[in-house]
């Protein structure tokens, strides 16, 4: 069973601060996706990383995939109240036969950015 450990579970910061969320596993993933979910909504895909060592930037968000494709991080610069939400990482892997591709989700990081 592929498990993703996400930390921290809760994070409350002031507007303008920086933060980093971590997603770690002992398994190698084909891809790693980050989602943000707001209350009453479904998860919205932010980014997909597939190459070890890859770094992607989305405005104030920076996503990194570990060299061994077992871990990832999300860094937010100068957080704003609009960044508030549940951040979920999800690792993609194929089963042993290679016929089935599935996502495993971390437990999520609930971020609150206070004005």
């Amino acid at each position, binding site marked *: 069973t592929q498990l993703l450990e996400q930390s921290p579970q809760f994070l409350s910061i002031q507007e303008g601060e920086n933060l980093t969320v971590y997603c770690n596993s002992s398994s190698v993933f084909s891809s790693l996706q980050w989602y943000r979910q707001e209350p009453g*909504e*479904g*998860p919205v*895909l932010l980014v*997909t990383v597939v190459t070890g060592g890859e770094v992607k930037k989305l405005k104030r968000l920076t996503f990194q995939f570990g060299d061994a494709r077992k871990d990832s991080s999300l860094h937010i610069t100068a957080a704003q109240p609009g960044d508030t939400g549940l951040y*979920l990482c*999800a690792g993609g892997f194929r089963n042993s036969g290679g016929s089935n591709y599935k996502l495993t*989700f*971390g437990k*999520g990081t609930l971020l609150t950015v206070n004005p």
Partner: protein
Amino acid sequence: SAVISQKPSRDICQRGTSLTIQCQVDSQVTMMFWYRQQPGQSLTLIATANQGSEATYESGFVIDKFPISRPNLTFSTLTVSNMSPEDSSIYLCSVRGGLIRGSYNEQFFGPGTRLTVL
């Protein structure tokens, strides 16, 4: 990406009854999934909805409790049968592949159905 809609968006049901949730996608997709998200928790995959055949259920989920239909490439239903308060959750439809396929096999989610069982 795809536009995914779910009906109903929320419902309050009595113990012992059943509720059918619908998922409609605006493009043909290869894969459709159903997830459950219990309060304050992450997403758990219930099953993969297969077109024209029985759904593939994950460990801990059975067809009698969560019957699923997928008559075509854009529509699926999940029924939560003989409900109990422990079934109170958000139920999410998710899709991947087909005409919405991105570069990296991305998966997209509907807005969810918030179910409360009394």
